C-alpha cells in the first residue's frame, strides 16, 4: 500500500472538473484508489464521491493506493493535484 499527503494548490479546491480529472486518472489503474480528507474517505475512482469532498485551497488530502500498479497510480494522481489541475 502506498500513501501520500498532497496540498491542494488551486483556488477552488476539488470541484467538478478536478474531481473529473482525478477519477479519469484513477480509472487508468488497476489499484484501488482512496482520497481522504479529515475523517472522510472517498473512492478516488468515483467522480460523485470526490465531488462530496470539501477540499479548498491550502488544505491537505491523503491519497492511498493499493494494488499491483500502486506506485504508478499514486505518482500520476499526485502529479495532477500538485499541478493544480491546470493542465489539459
Amino acid at each position, binding site marked *: 500500500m502506498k500513501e501520500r499527503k498532497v496540498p491542494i494548490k488551486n483556488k477552488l479546491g476539488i470541484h*467538478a472538473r478536478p*474531481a473529473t480529472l482525478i*477519477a479519469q486518472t484513477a480509472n487508468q489503474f488497476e489499484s484501488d484508489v482512496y482520497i481522504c480528507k479529515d475523517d472522510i474517505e472517498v473512492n478516488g*475512482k468515483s467522480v460523485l*464521491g470526490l465531488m462530496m469532498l470539501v477540499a*479548498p485551497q491550502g488544505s491537505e488530502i491523503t491519497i492511498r493506493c493499493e494494488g499491483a500498479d500502486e506506485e504508478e497510480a499514486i505518482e500520476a494522481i499526485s502529479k495532477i493535484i500538485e499541478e*493544480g489541475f*491546470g493542465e489539459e
Partner: protein
Amino acid sequence: MRSSQELKLKGIPVSPGIVIAPVKIFKRKRAQVKERILKPTEIEDEVSKFTKGTEKLISVLNELKMETKEENLARLLDVEISILNDTEMQNDVILLIRNKRRNAESAISSVFNNRKESLLKHESSYMRERANELERLGMDLIAMINDDYSREDFGFDGIIATESLSIEQALRIVRSNAKGVVTEVGGRTEHSALILRNFEVPTVFGIEKITKLVEDGDTMILDGGKGVVIINPMDSTLNRYFFIKSGYERYESGLASERDLPAITVDGKEIGLYANIDIPEEADRLLDLGKYGIGLFRTEMVFYEYSSDEEKQYQIYYDIAKKVYPNSVTIRSFDVGGDKFYSDYTEENPFLGLRGIRVLLEEQEVFERQIRAVIRANVHSNIRFMIPMVSNYEEVLEAKKIFLRNKKLLEKQQNNVNQPRFGVMIEVPSAVFILEHIAELVDFVSIGTNDLTQYTLAVNRKSLRVSKLFNHLHPAVLKLIQITTDICREKNIVVASCGEMASDPYGVVLLVGFGIDEISCPSSRILEVKSLIRRINLSDAEQIAAEAVKKSNHRAVKDLVGEYLKSVMPELLEFYE
C-alpha cells in the same frame, strides 16, 4: 389545464429576439418515473437495460463532444460523461435492482436524487449549483433506458417548450432549426443559458407550467429581450407583434447599415465604442459586427478554470489581444466574492464583504499569476488591466505596487516587456470622492454603473422586494458620474463606462453629455448604441446632463432625456422598454 384565453406570461429574459411560431413540447420529467417491484426473472434484464442505457448516453455525449469545437463546452460534457462512468453510482443502482428488486428507472431516480440532496448540502455554493445539472443528467438517463430519448427531437422549425435544459440539449438546439426556447425552470447564469445567448437563439426561462399550458402546434409569441411569452394570442395581438417584429427587423438592418461607420456625434466628438465579453469565444462573433475592441473582458470564467495556470491564462489573453488588434482589450481582474463564487467562505452580506480587490490582495498568488499572464500577453501593446471594486487609496497603491513588481521581475526574465495600461473600476461612491488621488496612480478608469447604483442607493438589484428602487437614472448616481468625468478631464485620464447604463439609450445620452470617452456594452447592443451616438449633438447632451443632475428623481430625468430621444431617434423608443 390548457387555456383558450390569450395569456401573457413574464419570465426571465435569457436571450433577445422576437419569434412568432408554433410551439412543440419536450418533456423528460421525474413524474414519469414509476416504481415497480420486479419479479425475480426480470432482474437481470433490468440490470442490462440500465447498463446499456448508460453506455448509449455516454456515446451520445462523446459524439457531441467530438463535434464541439469550443474547449470549455467540451469540458462541461466531460464532467457528465465521468458521472455516467462512475462505478460507485452504477453499483448503487445495480444493488437497488438486484437486492431491493426495484425497476431500473426508479433505482436511477433514487441514486441521483440522493446524490443531488448531498450536493445541495455542500459547503461550496458552486457545488450546490451543480445539483440541478446532476438531476437533469439522471432524467436523461431514465429517458434513455425507456427509449424516450431521441436526438432528432429538436429538428423542429418553431419554439421549443420544455421543463429545463441540459447543456447537451442546449448544444443540440443551437445546431437545429429551432427558432426559440421557453422553459419552466432555470437561471440566466446556467451553462445552457450561456450557450443559447451565445448563439442568439431567442429564449425565455422560468415560465411556470408552460409545458402544460400549451399543446403542440399552438401559436406562441416569444420576446426574449423582455422575457415575455404570449400564448393563444388574439388576432389583434398577432398583428401587433408581426408589425413589431418586421419593424424590429427593419430597424436592425438599418442599424447594420452603419456597421462600418465611426461612433461620432453630429458635432464631431468620437466616442470609443467597445464590447463586453464573458468568455473568450465571444471575441470571434464580435468580429462580424465590425472592428471593435473589448472594453470589459470579465475573467471570472477564466478564474473558475485556470486560476492556478499562468500559461493557459497567458494563451487566452494573448489570443484575444491578437484577435482585436489594433483595437485594445481591457482585462478586468478576477471579480469574485459578492454573488460570485469564492471558495467556501460565506459572507453575511457578500456585496459589502470580501470581494473584488479585497480578495485579490488577500490571494496574492492568484492575483500575481494573472498579472504576469496579462503583462506577458501584451505583445502588441493593446492590453489594459483593470482592478474591480476599489474603495480605498491604499488598495490601489498596493495593487499597483504588485503590478509593477511583477513587471520588473518579468523584465529580468525576458526582453521586450510591454507594460499594460493600468486602471480601476469606479463602482463604489467612496472611490469617486477620492478620485483625484487615485487618478495619480492610474492610466484610465471605467465606471461600473450597476454596482455604483447599487452602492449609492443601497439597493440589491436582485432583491425580490426592493429591486424596483434600483435605477441608474437616479440623480445621485448621475452626480457621482459627473464628478468622475470632471476629475478625469482635469487629470487628463481616459474615462470609460461599462455598466448596463452604457447600453440604455437614456444612459448613453447622459454619459455622452458628461463627457465620457469610451462606452462598452454587450455586443448585441453595439450597433444600436452607435446609431444613437451618431444622432446626438454633444452640446445638446451636455445641456441635458447638466439639467438632469438638478432633478429630484429618476422619473424627471427619464422624461427630460426621453423628449430628446424622441426628437433624434424615435424608432429606438419603440423597441426599448
